[in-house]
């Protein structure tokens, strides 16, 4: 079969890091080749080399049989390599057709645009893809799924034979994923080769023909999808078999209550939420997207102002209306979006770790004792095993797992007694996940009261001592640690069930 892409012995260095070590990758005509690996394994770097974003430091890249060396994404596009980034790069205020042909608009003399031709060309592409879409609609008004179709159409408009998709289903629902897959099948039939980057194992199994796994910047191996199990892929990715320990639930019946909230209320996402949390306990918050878990956390932390309700810390009522008051009360919040809300990416590790407790390091006139900041940072870097060249490294250069550890260090240094972890392992690779679970357990063991919010059921079941489930802004129940996924899902959809039930009853009555 014809090779569309052949990459051999690819090397890439970043300052202080050997990011790609002699990596190989090829892509055949009409296949979906999945590229897998933990975060930081080098998948994106490899694909950025193929699509002209980065320059390689060694090795050979052949596209359609010819040796190439792209210096810009545009050159890659012209050589029929298209990439669809995880974060879509469309102009929201322009129409679908305008987006697809931006910079290449059909025109009359003197640069006057030929709108009719533009629309016709755009429609033709969607016809090929078998997708119904209004090419004159503004992109900003469309769903993420539709926008993704526009990205694909844009890539195809360059007559791309090679299409790189980076986490294409991250923001799609099941129905949209099926639509995407049928387009992928169509493209395959037309001979397009697709590089498919995803973390979702079942999806990979379903759509891909071959799977290549990378780890720590190295090539691990390539397998036919049909005769490779998910378990095999995971062990290739991790490099070892992961033993999943069960939770050992400590007895906290004698422990003091660290946090109690009564009848918290804010809009439709936080409706009459009451619960209590003991010292040394890990309370997992489960629920579907939009159930209101993050909103509850933000209200407790004072990031959003509650409409009503009471918050008690160590038995005393506290008036918490801002994060600074929450921190004074000993509550720390680790946001799900650590890049925007948890870290100052452009600042170094030591500054980020010390940010919440900076006054402890300040003398008269607010003068900082840099040496003690450095010591404190070093202390947590070794305690949490944060992998960074030094405490003066900018945090944006760290991997997701290590960034998360920096945020954890920040709150530990502040000596908070109550810690709220919102999606603590999002964007963190499997190895670092386990370390974070271990840290959570150790924190509980020394008496910290912990709330963990997670969308992943296995994670909730793995770390929680007790599970609170939310649905549509309400707490629908508490479950013990040894519950099943089904029990959680039942509570997570409880109010929806009753409303459907209600509808049925209504219709019965009307009949």
């Amino acid at each position, binding site marked *: 079969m014809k090779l569309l892409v052949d990459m051999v012995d690819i090397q890439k260095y970043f*300052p*202080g*890091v*050997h990011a790609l070590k002699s990596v190989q990758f090829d892509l055949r005509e009409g296949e979906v080749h999945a590229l897998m690996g933990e975060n930081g394994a080098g998948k994106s770097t490899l694909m950025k080399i193929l699509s002209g974003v980065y320059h390689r430091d060694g090795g050979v890249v052949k596209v359609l049989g010819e040796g190439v060396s792209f210096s810009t994404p545009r050159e890659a596009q012209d050589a029929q390599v298209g990439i669809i980034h995880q974060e879509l790069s469309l102009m929201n205020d322009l129409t679908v057709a305008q987006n697809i042909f931006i910079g290449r608009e059909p025109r009359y003399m003197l640069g006057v645009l030929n709108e009719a031709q533009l629309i016709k060309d755009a429609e033709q592409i969607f016809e090929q893809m078998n997708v119904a879409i209004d090419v004159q609609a503004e992109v900003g008004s469309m769903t993420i799924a539709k926008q993704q179709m526009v990205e694909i159409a844009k890539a195809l408009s360059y007559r791309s034979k090679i299409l790189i998709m980076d986490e294409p289903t991250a923001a799609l629902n099941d129905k949209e994923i099926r639509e995407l897959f049928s387009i992928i099948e169509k493209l395959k039939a037309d001979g397009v080769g697709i590089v498919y980057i995803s973390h979702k194992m079942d999806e990979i199994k379903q759509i891909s023909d071959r799977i290549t796994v990378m780890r*720590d910047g190295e090539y691990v191996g390539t397998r036919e999808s049909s005769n490779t199990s998910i378990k095999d892929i995971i062990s290739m990715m991790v490099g070892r078999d992961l033993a999943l320990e069960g939770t050992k639930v400590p007895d906290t019946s004698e422990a003091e209550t660290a946090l109690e909230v009564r009848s918290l209320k804010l809009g439709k996402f936080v409706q009459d939420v009451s619960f209590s949390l003991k010292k040394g306990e890990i309370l997992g918050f489960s629920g579907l997207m939009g159930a209101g878990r993050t909103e509850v956390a933000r209200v407790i*932390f004072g*990031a959003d102002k509650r409409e009503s309700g009471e918050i008690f810390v160590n038995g005393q009522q506290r008036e918490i209306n*801002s*994060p*600074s008051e*929450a*921190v*004074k009360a000993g509550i720390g*919040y680790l*946001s799900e979006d650590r890049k*925007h*809300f*948890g*870290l*100052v*990416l*452009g*600042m170094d590790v030591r*500054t980020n770790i010390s*940010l*919440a407790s*900076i*006054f402890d390091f*300040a003398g008269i*006139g*607010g*003068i*900082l004792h*840099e040496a003690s900041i450095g010591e404190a940072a070093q202390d947590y870097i070794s305690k949490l095993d944060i*992998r960074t*060249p*030094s405490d*003066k*490294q*900018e945090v944006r250069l760290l991997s997701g797992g290590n960034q998360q550890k920096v945020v954890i260090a*920040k709150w530990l240094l*502040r000596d908070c007694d109550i810690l709220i972890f919102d999606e603590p392992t999002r964007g963190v690779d499997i190895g670092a996940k386990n370390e974070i679970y271990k840290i959570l357990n150790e924190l509980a063991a020394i008496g910290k009261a912990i709330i963990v919010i997670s969308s992943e059921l296995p994670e909730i079941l793995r770390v929680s001592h007790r599970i609170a489930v939310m649905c549509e802004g309400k707490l629908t129940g508490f479950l013990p640690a040894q519950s099943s996924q089904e029990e959680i899902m039942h509570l997570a959809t409880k109010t929806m069930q009753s409303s459907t039930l209600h509808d049925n009853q209504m219709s019965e009555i009307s009949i």
Partner: protein
Amino acid sequence: MSNSTISAAPTEAGLLTSLKRNQHRFWAFSGLIILLIGFSLASPNFFQTSNIISILQATSVNGVLAIAATLVIITAGIDLSVGTLMTFCAVICGVLLTNMGLPMYLGIPGALLAGFASGAFSGFLVAKLKIPPFIATLGMMLIYKGLSLAICAGRPIYFNDTEGFSEISTGSLIGYIFPTLPIPNGVLILFLVAMIASFILTRTVLGRFIFALGSNEEALRLSGVNIDRWKIIVYSLAGGICAVAGVLLASRINSAQPAIGQGYELDAIAAVVIGGTSLSGGKGTMLGTVIGALIISVVANGLRILSVPQEWQIVVTGSIIILAVYADQMRRN
């Protein structure tokens, strides 16, 4: 990652980052040196002690204002009111010293206090009322201008009755100690203010928060920091520094001129930008700003010595701003 790579990395990364961090200052500084050499070669009158001192003297007011602007700009804000606030404080100083006949040790702190309070008010508009800094300080710029004119009824206030007032800027403490180095006090004050501001920026909690506000304000808020309060403090400090500039200017021309001031804010922002501070916040140094202010004065002075007409001096200054920022962009890519 293996342990060996971790232990090997620090020196390498440390050197690289420190080189990168100081690169811009290096460029700005080289630019200044090249300008000095160029003008010295072009005219024998340029590199004379008296001329260098007059360049420094001319830099003092704009330099101090640029320092004030730098603080605000690093927080990703902007302060358009620095020029007219300077004038406003000079007028207050005139009212206290000349109209009310207060002694200097009361009148000057009074003027500084007016600066801090006015700055705090701008900070209040930005932090509490959530008015974008550009708009809030644009409004304040006009308000200070109008107030200054109103207070003086449009006429300058002279400091002829206050003995020693002009010494604040034009006297020379250094020249008194080292007669061969008659550096005026105004220049001494510029460097003192720059050193203090640099110290605040790099060594204090306030400085840490100034950078954090410009880098990621929301992350700072969610770290439990009362960001409104700190923003007000930053604008207030900038206001206080504008008052220093006001006293300097008043002392140099021995009068408070209510009609001047507008336009100074643009020279100040130009110095900040030439000095490598990013208008999008989070990055900047005081040394860079002082170098930026010096570059502007050196160009103006050098071109005047070469008898280049003033209108063309302005064109050159504009070009230098664009060139400096272009160099900065090239460095980033």
